[in-house]
């Protein structure tokens, strides 16, 4: 057990270091992450104190009460998410090929004189500790709706990570090796089908959409246990809950993982490479770059067209998402509100309107930073072989303004359909100067980061950016740009409420966009001409 805890410590510290120390050792280089952490936790504490104060002063129920308020919308969303999680885990381990990925920085543990169960248990515990620490960011958003929602999130997360994932992973590997995997697949498919039919049946019977307890209980169950414990023994239930979950995890993993084999683990990098090769394979079904008319033409084609997601393929990729989001918005507004299940003005509506944009923005950050990282890593090529850095910068600003606009179009399209207010699209159009400006700021911040980044190894560190450390550096500027751009669209929407303004504001907006584009590109090109390229 001691060695498992030791492994947990290594995994935890490794993840922590790669997040907070994105730079090489040196006081100055630690500073940005440190300041950001202080600001973040300061804001978090301020929000908590404010909410606690306002709720206590109005005599509301205890903030530490983890019981659900009985709000049907939230219960429905909770059931739906629980069912989706359980279907996802089953699909991952019993329908498709499911491995557990091992992070590159701890791969060496597999080849040490340790029992496999010690490595595996340590990995789980270390990852859980890190995730709990880092997900306070998400918790901060939930705090607005009440502390008990944070509890739901944390306690269900712990349960999923410590019990559901390991149990399903280990049992799927054991069953696969025993030769009964086909039978297991049939059983689980049957389980999902019964759950879906039960949901449909109860929805029709009661006249309101419901998710079957068959699908939601495996996830919600432990939380219900927590509430029962709370009613019995009060606040000490949190401690008891942790002890139960941790000891069950250790028992399950230590007994079952003895049947695991080293081949059950695959390197994160391998999976990434396989995925990337597949994507690249399809991306190469294109014309080959062999003709150009001028150096600028060649640069334009390579930066805008010969990337994995050029604006054209991006549009192709996102049009279905846009249509799906719009239809979803329409269904929620027309169908669910008519059934009386959903009230847009209520907390469920606010949650939905905030959650979808946040989800889309968060999902976009990773691919934008991969794109930008790919472009910036080749800055040396431009500095050595090209005469025209200004044109390169113009292409970068144009490319990322367009990418960000496409993402914001999906979000505003969804909200416009949901709220039946198409002035949202007008708000997006009117925000184009700001979008260009935030892209400029993001690239500028990136250049300052890169200036400080000394020789970065081609591979290492944690998660996707492990394979691409520069991409890791880009998280803050990209997230910053995406959030600011979205906030600006929200603000513009408050000011501009009608289409009638469109003919008036569009020409000056376009002119302003052009001016900002030209000025910022010129400024950035000077920065990029001077910047130390040490990567």
């Amino acid at each position: 057990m001691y060695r498992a805890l030791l492994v947990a410590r290594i995994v935890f510290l490794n993840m922590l270091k790669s997040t907070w120390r994105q730079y090489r050792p040196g006081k100055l280089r630690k500073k940005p992450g440190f300041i950001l952490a202080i600001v973040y936790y300061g804001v978090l504490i301020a929000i908590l104190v404010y909410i606690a104060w306002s709720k206590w002063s109005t005599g509301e129920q205890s903030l530490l009460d983890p019981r659900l308020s009985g709000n049907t919308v939230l219960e429905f969303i909770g059931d739906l998410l629980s069912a989706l999680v359980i279907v996802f885990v089953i699909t991952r381990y019993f329908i498709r090929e499911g491995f557990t990925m091992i992070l590159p920085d701890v791969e060496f543990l597999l080849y040490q004189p340790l029992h496999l169960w010690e490595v595996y248990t340590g990995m789980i515990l270390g990852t859980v500790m890190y995730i709990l620490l880092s997900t306070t960011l998400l918790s901060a958003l939930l705090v607005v709706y009440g502390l008990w929602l944070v509890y739901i999130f944390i306690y269900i997360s712990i349960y999923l990570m410590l019990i559901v994932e390991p149990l399903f992973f280990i049992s799927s590997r054991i069953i696969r090796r025993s030769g009964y995997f086909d039978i297991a697949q049939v059983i689980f498919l049957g389980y999902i089908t019964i759950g879906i039919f039960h949901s449909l049946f109860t929805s029709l019977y009661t006249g309101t959409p419901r998710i079957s307890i068959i699908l939601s209980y495996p996830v919600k169950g432990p939380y219900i246990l927590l509430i029962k414990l709370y009613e019995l023994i009060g606040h000490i239930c949190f401690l008891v809950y942790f002890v139960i979950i941790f000891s069950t995890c250790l028992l399950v993993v230590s007994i079952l993982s003895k049947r695991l084999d080293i081949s059950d683990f695959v390197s994160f990098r391998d999976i990434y490479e396989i995925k990337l090769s597949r994507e690249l394979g399809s991306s190469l079904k294109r014309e080959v770059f062999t003709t150009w008319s001028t150096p600028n033409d060649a640069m334009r084609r390579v930066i805008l067209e010969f990337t994995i997601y050029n604006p054209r393929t991006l549009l192709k990729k996102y049009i279905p998402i846009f249509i799906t989001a719009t239809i979803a918005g329409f269904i929620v507004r027309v169908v669910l509100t008519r059934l009386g299940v959903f009230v847009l003005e209520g907390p469920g509506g606010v949650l939905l309107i905030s959650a979808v944009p946040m989800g889309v923005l968060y999902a976009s950050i990773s691919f934008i930073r991969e794109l930008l990282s790919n472009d910036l890593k080749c800055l040396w090529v431009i500095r050595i072989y090209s005469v025209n850095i200004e044109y390169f910068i113009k292409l970068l600003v144009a490319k990322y303004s367009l990418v960000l606009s496409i993402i914001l179009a999906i979000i505003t399209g969804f909200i416009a359909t949901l709220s039946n207010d198409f002035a949202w699209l007008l708000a997006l159009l009117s925000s184009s100067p700001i979008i260009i400006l935030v892209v400029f700021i993001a690239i500028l911040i990136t250049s300052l980061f890169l200036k400080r980044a000394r020789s970065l190894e081609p591979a290492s560190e944690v998660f996707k950016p492990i394979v691409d450390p520069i991409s890791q550096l880009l998280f803050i500027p990209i997230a910053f740009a995406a959030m600011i751009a979205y906030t600006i669209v929200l603000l513009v929407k408050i000011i501009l409420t009608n289409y009638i303004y469109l003919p008036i504001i569009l020409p000056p907006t376009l002119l302003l966009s052009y001016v900002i584009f030209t000025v910022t590109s010129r400024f950035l090109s000077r920065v990029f001409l001077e910047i130390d390229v040490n990567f």
Partner: protein
Amino acid sequence: MSLRAIIADGLVKKFGSIMAINNLSFSVDYGDIYCLVGPNGAGKTTTLRITVGLLKPDRGCVLIEGRDVHVNRAEALKNVGYVPDYPNLPSYLTPLEFMYYVSALRGFKRSDVEDYVKYYIDALNLGDEVKKPIRTLSRGALQKTAIAAALVVKPRVVIMDEPLTNIEIDTQIAFKKIVRRLAVVEKVAFLISSHMLPLIEGVCTHVAVIDKGRLLVEGDMESILKIAGERASFEEVYLKIMGKSNV
């Protein structure tokens, strides 16, 4: 071609409190194959990056073909080919496309470089790799791509940082032949950093040994080899310079 190909004068570069380069000066003539040698962390990569203008020195200057690389970048680099220590290349292009891309950036037409591209693909054994995305290449193939791209632009000055890392033996032999031919026949100037003794002994005409950012010894190969006595190998010379003769 009366000018020297590269002149580095009094280069100083600090990273925080670390002195990476300390008053380093050297020069490379056309036809020279000038090799920077030294232990890890000696400042070789920093020197090469300053030479091509990717890093700005805190003091000193670099002239390439008579033009200051940090003042007149475009003119100074217009005949330069460069291979970085780890070549970050556009992931979604193929090696073939990358070679054409750098040629295009230099203002060449396809017909100007087509024969060179074919020649270097063949000479450096790139084979079928040229049609695969760069992101899927092995480290060796990536290195060969960077070398080929540096040479297809018909450079008069070539700067290479550890060019033979991860490259198989037959390509190493081919590389040495190419470098020798370009230096002797076409008077191309080479500035190379390397840890590989066969490359240093077999190809280089001039050597500079640096450590902790300082130049310890510099000269043509013949005079350098005499440091450890008659018939000494470069290995012996290097150990003597570094004060490790007893290794």
